[in-house]
């Protein structure tokens, strides 16, 4: 990984995600700190990234690196944790049944990902699907159901839906720019995660595999006959 990517691109991209992940334009207090459960989910996401090899912490912080390089690596890891927390915060609805359902959905999905231990490419694909589906749920479906604008018919339907669900589904209305901002933030997060230093398993594992293979093969070459 080039120093520019490690020292400039990754910290700035991940910190930008951490900044915009909690931003809700139009509110009296526009920057929302993450709830505790977002921290739990972020720890699970971080662990999944490490287990899958999408992130190799030893390539960011290691005895063999200089202090400055280690400081850069530490900043990347802290920024990644902050960004992961805020992405979870961004994708979670703010109240009611959707909040509980999405939290449970993300918890089970991440737990499943941890247990399944996918490789880097599969984890990135899975992360893209999780982020995309949670984005559509919050910023398209729930936002549409909670939108106070629109014609009389739509408002009547929304009011009926709200009454039928005892107000457990409807969310506070979002501003128009919130969805675009969330989309940009999620894309930036996925790009940054894809750009993290990956584990070089091939280099580490191949000599061991070679050694094991040599031991398991019959002496002086073997044949199937």
């Amino acid at each position, binding site marked *: *990984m*080039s*120093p*520019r990517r*490690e*020292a*400039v691109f990754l*910290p*700035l991209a991940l*910190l930008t995600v*951490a*900044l915009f992940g*909690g931003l809700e334009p139009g509110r*009296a*207090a*526009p*920057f929302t*700190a993450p709830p505790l459960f977002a921290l739990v989910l972020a720890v699970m996401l971080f662990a999944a990234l490490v287990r899958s090899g999408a992130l190799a912490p*030893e*390539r960011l912080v*290691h005895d*063999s*690196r*200089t202090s*400055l*390089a280690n*400081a*850069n690596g530490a*900043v990347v890891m802290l*920024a990644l944790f902050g960004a992961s927390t805020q992405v979870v915060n961004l994708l979670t609805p703010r109240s009611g049944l959707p909040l509980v359902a999405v939290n449970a959905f993300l918890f089970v999905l991440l737990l499943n990902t941890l247990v399944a231990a996918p490789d880097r490419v599969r984890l990135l694909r899975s992360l893209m699907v999780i982020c995309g589906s949670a984005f559509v749920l919050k910023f398209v479906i729930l936002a549409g159901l909670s939108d106070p604008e629109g014609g009389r018919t739509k408002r009547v339907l929304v009011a009926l839906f709200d009454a039928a669900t005892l107000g457990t589904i409807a969310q506070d209305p979002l501003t128009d720019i919130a969805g675009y901002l969330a989309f940009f933030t999620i894309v930036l997060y996925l790009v940054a995660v894809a750009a993290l230093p990956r584990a*070089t398993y091939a*280099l*580490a594992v191949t*000599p*061991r595999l070679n050694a094991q293979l040599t031991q398991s093969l019959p002496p002086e070459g073997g044949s199937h006959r």
Partner: protein
Amino acid sequence: MSPESVVPSSESDELDPNSCDPRPAARTPSSVVKGRVREQVVRGAGLVVALVYAAMIVWAYARQPRTIAQVTGGLSATIGAYRVEPRSYADGLQFFRRDQFVEARAAFARADPAERDAQTQFYIAYSYYREGWGRLYSTDALFAKGLESANKAIALAPGGRLVVDDPDLQMHSADELKAELQRGLERDLSDLNPMRLFRTRK
């Protein structure tokens, strides 16, 4: 080979998994030194920029700025470079003394777009008080906004103490103004006292 041994000893020696050419590039000693210096500069600059950016993010979450003006004003106030625009401030004072409170607040908002000046916030709070004051009852919405501005003024004043030497005012400190606004928002039996009709606006 242990797993640790595959960790590159330095960035310049790192293996590029995307590279098709396994041979290291031929470099002269001076270009190697230049490359290392450049790498240290990039790393140092990146670290400083990332730390400053992180500090800005923490500041934004702590201060909750709502507009770009509040962001820039807040950051310039942090380094002591924020100034109130004097002409708009003078306009605001003139409007305030003529009891044109809406106009006064517009001028004060222009003078202090980042809401970082305690005295300007004090006058904004006072304008809400005077506009919302009534002999029979006060307007709660205006008093609530006034209380918000008074709290802001107290938070911005050094040590929380703000005294304004203006002979046109009857309340000179932000604490008095805040208490008066709070009293106006309370509901109790004294609201039914007929002597309230004889009280005066401060």
